[in-house]
C-alpha cells in the first residue's frame, strides 16, 4: 500500500486503455458471418467495404495509421476538399480565438459595469436571462443573413456563446469583492481607475477566469457544429466532409484531435486561473 496514488491511477488508466483498444480491435476484426444479413439498399449506400467480409468500422490499428499519416503531413493543401488536418485545425482555432477574443473585450468591461452598478445590473438582467439560454446555433441564420459571410458568421456564433459565462462571472466576481478591501482603497483615497485595477480586478480575477474557462470549453464545442453548418474550412467541416467520403477512420481521428485540442485549451486557462488565485 505504499505505492503512490499517482502511480496506481496511471496503471489503471493504461489498463483501461489497453482493454478498450483490445475490445475495439476484436469487435472490428471483420467476421460478419453469422450476423444478420444486411439490407442490400443500405449496403449499397455504405459502399464496397460493407459488402466485403471486413467490417466498415475501422479498428484501432487503422486509426493509428491514419493519425500517424496526418501527423506526418498536417499542412498539405490539395484543393478545397482535401487539406491537411493541421490546416483545418488552424482555421478552427483562429475562429475560436477571434470570437472568443471579441467576447473577452466586451464581456469583461461590461461585467465590471454590471458588477459595480446595481442599477445597470437590474436593467440588463432581463436581456441576459432571455438571451443566455439560446443555443448559439440558433443565431446562425440571423448571422448568415446579416453578415453574409460564412466565416464571419461562425466567428459571431463563437462570440455569442462565449460571452455569457464571462459576463455573468465577471459581474458576480466584481459584485462580491469584499467590502473591507474596498474600504481599504477608500481610506487610502484611491481613485476609481486605480481601484478597479488594483483591488477589484485582482479580487475578482479567479471568478473571471472560471468564466473564461467555461467559455473556451463551450466555444470549442460550438465551433465544430458551426463549421459543419457553414462549410468551407475548419475541423468541423473536415468531419462532415469525411463523413460524406465515408472515411470513418478520418472521422475518428478528427474526434481524437478535437478532444486533444480542447484539453489543451482548457488546461491553458486552468493554469492562468491558478496563477491569479490567492490563498486567504
Amino acid at each position, binding site marked *: 500500500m505504499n505505492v503512490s496514488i499517482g502511480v496506481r491511477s496511471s496503471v489503471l488508466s493504461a489498463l483501461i486503455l489497453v482493454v478498450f483498444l483490445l475490445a475495439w480491435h476484436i469487435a472490428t476484426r471483420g467476421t460478419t458471418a453469422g450476423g444478420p444479413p444486411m439490407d442490400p439498399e443500405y449496403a449499397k449506400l455504405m459502399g464496397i467495404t460493407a459488402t466485403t467480409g471486413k467490417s466498415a468500422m475501422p479498428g484501432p490499428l487503422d486509426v493509428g495509421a491514419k493519425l500517424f499519416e496526418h501527423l506526418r503531413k498536417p499542412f498539405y493543401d490539395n484543393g478545397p476538399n482535401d487539406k491537411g488536418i493541421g490546416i483545418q485545425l488552424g482555421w478552427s482555432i483562429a475562429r475560436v480565438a477571434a470570437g472568443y477574443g471579441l467576447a473577452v473585450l466586451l464581456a469583461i468591461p461590461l461585467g465590471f459595469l454590471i458588477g459595480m452598478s446595481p442599477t445597470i445590473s437590474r436593467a440588463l438582467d432581463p436581456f441576459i436571462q432571455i438571451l443566455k439560454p439560446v443555443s448559439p446555433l440558433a443565431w446562425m441564420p440571423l448571422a448568415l443573413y446579416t453578415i453574409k459571410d460564412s466565416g464571419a458568421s461562425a466567428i459571431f456564433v463563437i462570440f455569442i456563446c462565449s460571452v455569457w459565462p464571462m459576463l455573468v462571472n465577471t459581474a458576480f466576481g466584481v459584485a462580491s469583492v469584499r467590502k*473591507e478591501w474596498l*474600504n481599504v482603497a477608500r*481610506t*487610502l483615497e484611491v481613485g476609481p481607475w486605480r481601484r478597479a485595477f*488594483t*483591488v477589484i480586478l485582482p479580487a475578482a480575477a479567479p471568478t473571471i477566469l472560471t468564466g473564461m474557462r467555461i467559455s473556451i470549453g463551450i466555444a470549442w464545442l460550438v465551433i465544430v457544429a458551426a463549421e459543419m453548418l457553414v462549410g468551407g474550412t475548419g475541423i468541423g467541416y473536415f468531419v462532415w466532409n469525411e463523413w460524406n467520403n465515408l472515411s470513418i477512420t478520418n472521422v475518428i481521428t478528427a474526434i481524437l484531435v478535437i478532444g486533444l485540442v480542447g484539453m489543451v485549451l482548457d488546461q491553458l486557462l486552468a493554469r492562468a486561473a491558478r496563477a491569479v488565485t*490567492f490563498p486567504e
Partner: protein
Amino acid sequence: MNERFISFEGIARRYPAPDGGTSTIFENLWLGVPKGEFVCVIGHSGCGKTTLLNILAGLDAPSEGVVLVDGREIGGPSLDRAVIFQGHALLPWRTVLGNVAYAVSSRHPRMSKAEVEEHARRFIALVGLQGSEHKRPAELSGGMKQRVGIARALSIEPKILLMDEPFSALDALTRGSLQDEVRRICRETGQTVFMITHDVDEAIYLADRVVLMTNGPGAMVAETVVNPLPVDRERTDLHKHPAYYPLRNHLIDFLVTRSRTWRDAIPADHDPRRPPVVRPSIPAPAAAAAASETAVQSEMLRNIA
C-alpha cells in the same frame, strides 16, 4: 482648537427599521478629542462603536450633525485618518511589502518605486516584521497580519489613527506585545488615536481618556474618564498603581450595571454637548492599604488561574 482636534457635533445615525420606521443607533452625540491624545471608546456590543468610528473614518455618513477634524468638516475618507480594521483587511494577493507599499504609494503618488519600497520597509521594521516582507498574508499568523495592518496605517503618517478592536482576535500574549508596540510608537510620535475596545485592561493601559457609551439603541456618551495613571506606566505593573483599582472598578461598574441603567436615571445636569469628565480619585492611605490588599488577592488568583 487643539482641545477639540476631533469634534463630533450633534451627530445621529439612523437606519430604516424593518417595520417601516427608523431605528436610531445614537443621536445628539457630542464628543471632543484633543490633539495627541489616545482615546478609547468602550461600550457593549451593538451600541454603535463601529458606527461611530466609521463615521469618523468617513466610510459612513451621519444622518444628522457633522464631524470636524482640525476645524474642518469631514466629507469622506481621507489619508489623514488611517484605519486599522478589526479583520486586518490585508489584500491577500499582495505580499507584506506590497500591502504596505500600496498605502505608501497612495500617500505619495509621485514617489519612485524604490523610494516607496524604502519607506514601506521602514514601517515594516517598526512593527518588527523585517524578514517577512515577501510573505503573503495567508502565510502569516494572526498577530503578524495585524502588525502589517498597523504598519500600513502608520506608513501614511496620518493625523489620526483609528482602530476598531484591533487586538480582539489575538491571544493574550500576542495582544500584550502588540499593545506595547502601539503604545511606544504612538507616544514617540504624539499620535492622536481613536480606538474601540471591549477590554477594560487594554483601555487602562493604552488610553489617556476613556469614553463610556451606554447600551443601544439610542446610545449616549455617559461620561469620559481621565486616566489617572502616570504616562510612563508599564503593562506588567499597572495594578501596582494606587489609582488602578478605582479606575478599573469604575469602568467595570459602568459596563456591568450603569451602561444599562444610566438612561433610566439621567443626571438632571447632564448636558449631551458636554459629557461630564470623571477622574477616579486616588484613594486615601487607609483605602490604599485595602486596595493593595485586593491587588495582592487578585494577583494570587491570577497566578492560580
